[in-house]
């Protein structure tokens, strides 16, 4: 039973992380899957969300910290909303010079802004505490829940050890619920939006910009809305991550975990399909965990294991692009509610 409890605890941890990645995938799906905007600076928006949330809802600087600002200790929802707003604002400024140009320019500009954000996180210690990171970020409702669990466990010492182990991990169950709630809400909202006339314009832009422009749609403005909306969702994912990990530094938002893995997730799941984005996140996060098991079986450790795991994700991407570019679920061709009801 103890083994079972251990597996269940791991499953919860796994699902929380995969769920946060799924939120990132939903954001990217709006930009890339539905509008064809090539954002390879996801890590930047993700990091901005995490740091904004940590600065708004986190603790004030401690005596050992370099940073001098932030730590307003607002309740978590304030940090969450702030994260979305600031990420969206940055996306707006990236969109201004690039959205009127070919898609490659947006790609280069987003990778550039992500790199600049990473440099700022690493160097501006007054704001971000640089490499020492921001510590003790409070998890929402953590202290009452953890206190309650401790009280209950102390009152019932006769409980079997597996149940104790499950219960002492109780806060993660709560956080999983929170992640699932936000993921489900974002899923439903983006499904609703994509099936609206607004969503059909986005898809039309992706398929043929000039044709869409001739129908009188303001291409630039629609692209901007998509870019900003996607970035806001990425910022929310950053907030979810910061308050779960309770510690962030620049290394949490490296290009591999912050950007590349999310692209692979979306492409494997099926870009242009919100369910595919979520499935892809769980599948690829599972593959990533599986490669850790494999490399340890082969006796690889340290950088060798890490490099091999990243190479395998890269190879999976190339195989999918060549063999099955639509991904696992593929895109739903018809999203119009009217056409569906006629069928």
């Amino acid at each position, binding site marked *: 039973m103890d083994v079972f409890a251990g597996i269940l605890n791991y499953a919860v941890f796994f699902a929380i992380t995969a769920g946060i990645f799924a939120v990132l995938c939903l954001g990217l799906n709006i930009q890339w899957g539905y509008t*064809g905007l*090539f954002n*390879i600076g996801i890590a930047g928006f993700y990091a901005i969300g995490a740091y904004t949330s940590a600065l708004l809802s986190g603790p004030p600087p401690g005596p050992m910290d370099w940073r001098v600002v932030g730590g307003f200790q607002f309740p978590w929802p304030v940090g969450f909303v702030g994260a979305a707003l600031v990420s969206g604002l940055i996306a707006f400024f990236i969109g*201004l*010079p*690039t959205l009127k*140009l070919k*898609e*490659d*320019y947006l*790609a*280069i*500009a987003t*990778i*550039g*802004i992500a*790199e*600049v954000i990473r*440099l700022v996180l*690493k*160097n501006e210690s007054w704001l971000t505490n640089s490499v020492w990171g921001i510590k003790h970020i409070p998890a929402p409702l953590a202290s009452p829940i953890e206190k309650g669990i401790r009280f209950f466990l102390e009152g019932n010492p006769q409980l079997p050890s597996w149940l104790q182990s499950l219960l002492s991990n109780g806060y993660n169950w709560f956080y999983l619920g929170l992640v699932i709630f936000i993921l489900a809400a974002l899923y439903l909202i983006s499904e609703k939006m994509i099936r609206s006339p607004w969503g059909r314009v986005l898809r039309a832009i992706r398929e043929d910009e000039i044709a869409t422009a001739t129908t009188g749609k303001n291409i630039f403005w629609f692209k901007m809305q998509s870019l900003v909306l996607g970035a806001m969702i990425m910022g929310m994912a950053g907030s979810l991550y910061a308050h779960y990990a309770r510690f962030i530094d620049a290394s949490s938002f490296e*290009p*591999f975990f912050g950007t*590349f893995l999310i*692209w*692979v997730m979306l*492409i494997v799941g099926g870009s242009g399909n919100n369910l595919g984005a979520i499935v892809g996140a769980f599948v690829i996060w599972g593959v990533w965990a599986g490669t850790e098991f494999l490399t340890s079986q082969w006796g690889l450790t340290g*950088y*060798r294991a*890490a*490099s*091999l795991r*990243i*190479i395998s*994700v*890269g*190879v999976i*991407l*190339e195989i999918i*692009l*060549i063999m099955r*570019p639509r991904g696992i679920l593929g895109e739903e061709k018809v999203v119009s509610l009217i056409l569906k009801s006629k069928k």
Partner: protein
Amino acid sequence: MEITSRIPQLVVYGLVSGSIITLGAIGLSLTYGILRFANFAHGDVMATGAFLAFAFLGFFQGLNLPSTPFHPLSFGLPLLLAFILSMIATGGVAIGIDRVIYKRLRTTGRITLLISSVGVAFILRNALQFIWGPDPRYYIKKIQIAIRIPGLGVRIKPDEIFIIAVASCLVIFLHFFLTNTRMGKAMRATSDNMDLAQVSGIDTENVIKWTWAIGSALAAAGGVLAGIENKFITPNLGWNMLLPIFAAVILGGIGSPYGAMLGGMIIGLSAEISTAFISTSYKPAVAFIIMVVMLLIKPRGLLGEK
């Protein structure tokens, strides 16, 4: 006064790093012009070249080649041979990657190629890290004393003169190749209009192969020269070069090799000169800001056509 007195020296550093960026940017611009996609793996191709040279260097040091440095340079025959071989080998690696991956995706559109190049970038970088590890690998273990150029009040190392000279020679060589040889002309024609080139009887597949070979060989040269300048290389070399070379290409105009040279020099110089005013760690950010400003005022670049 303090700041302005440092600028001549920073110009020297800028010329050196501009030479390295130029070599990367030309290759990127060539593939961009002919294959019509932004190759995000190009920085990592530079790093691949640098590491292949490191491998050849080890091989030649194992043979008992005369390894006394060419005075006043700080390296000798082994590194020079490794440099040349690595350019050839990196060209081969690029053709191989094209065969296995890009060729199969050529009909699916440039954005798919772009995504797959991001995948190739991660594969290359981690293959280098898997083989050679994340720690610095040294080309040259000695410290070289800079010589003072009389009258100008600046110092430059003989190795840095070598870097500028080699980069200039390669650029001149490329210029003659593009303007005077059959293949060079075919490449320019394909870059202007691939369909038209094809109906005029140009073997565009062959042109693509040559484009990869030349662009990647130049990238390898840039990678090795970066290694000579820093004395060491790490697998992150490619990632650090990515932003400067893209900024150089956009500044000069996509698809224009001459624009890439101009852009490379401007990016190199402005990044180095910026260190007189802001923290050194923001050098890549300077390249990025110049790029964004260029996109705002003239997205076609300084020498871009169309």
